[in-house]
């Protein structure tokens, strides 16, 4: 069996397909959020009695931080696909990802600052991971700014795609920028940690919330991609026919 993948790279077929997928991702995101929050707040009591409860910020801080990096990688993949194959949809997907990526990065920074205030006594420090995450936020904002600054959409797509590819250098830096192997010797917010040391119920809630964030990102990015397709293809016959049919 052979599937013609390029069929789905055409906005004409992708638009209705994305529309069908959005509710599924949205429901999955909602259900997982409910489960994750329930587990995170009610199924972890025994370890709470003597521990400081601010660790619960982990249930949004870690998913947001992971999404901020993951969405950037996905955005660069679409940008590269656009640069190589010159397909319209690739660029549209890349620009649909940027605002959500920026929001996730912002959330990771804000929840991190709040956490930092409680556990470390300061809102901000130039910890390597925080600094590179801040640069990632600037990359997202720069990508969006560059795209809106160039009037010709095709040139805007190519220029911003190139910027996105260059900015990919941030992601491995964020991932590996842990400069404090032993928390007893230095005070860094981000220490080298292993999954084995984290309590099982906390991990369950954290991974469920990560999955929920992931599904939410799928849903909202597809919704935004549909908007971009509509706006950019507004003078084509298929859009006219579709709107006519929906009346």
């Amino acid at each position, binding site marked *: 069996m052979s599937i013609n993948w390029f069929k789905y790279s055409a906005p004409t077929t992708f638009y209705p397909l994305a529309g069908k997928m959005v509710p599924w991702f949205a429901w999955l995101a909602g259900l997982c959020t409910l489960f994750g929050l329930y587990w995170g707040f009610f199924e972890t*009591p025994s370890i709470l009695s003597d521990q400081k*409860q*601010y660790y*619960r910020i982990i249930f949004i801080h870690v998913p947001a931080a992971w999404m901020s990096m993951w969405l950037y990688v996905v955005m660069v993949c679409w940008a590269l696909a656009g640069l190589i194959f010159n397909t319209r949809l690739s660029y549209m997907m890349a620009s649909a990802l940027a605002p959500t990526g920026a929001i996730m990065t*912002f959330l990771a920074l804000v*929840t991190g600052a709040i*956490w930092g205030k409680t556990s470390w006594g300061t809102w901000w420090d130039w910890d390597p991971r925080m600094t590179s995450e801040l640069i990632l936020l600037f990359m997202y904002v720069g990508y969006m700014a560059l795209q809106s600054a160039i009037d010709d959409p095709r040139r805007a797509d190519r220029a911003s795609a190139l910027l996105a590819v260059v900015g990919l250098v941030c992601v491995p830096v964020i991932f590996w920028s842990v400069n404090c192997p032993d928390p007893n010797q230095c005070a860094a917010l981000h220490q080298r940690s292993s999954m084995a040391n984290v309590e099982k119920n906390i991990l369950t809630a954290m991974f469920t919330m990560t999955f929920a964030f992931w599904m939410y990102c799928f849903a909202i990015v597809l919704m935004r991609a549909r908007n971009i397709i509509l706006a950019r293809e507004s003078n084509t016959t298929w859009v006219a026919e579709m709107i006519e049919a929906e009346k």
Partner: protein
Amino acid sequence: MSVAEFFSMGGYGTFIWSSFGVTLVLIVGEIIAVRQQHRTILQRLGRMMRLNAEVEK
């Protein structure tokens, strides 16, 4: 555990609930913005099509 105890989160309630609050506001805001954008585009397209239809008459 009482409700008040739950919300105080061992004295860290402000920090925890503001974190979750910011997240909720941004995500709900993003959903509203994208849906609003969708409606605006459809309205504009509808207007354009009506104009075209009138020109063709």
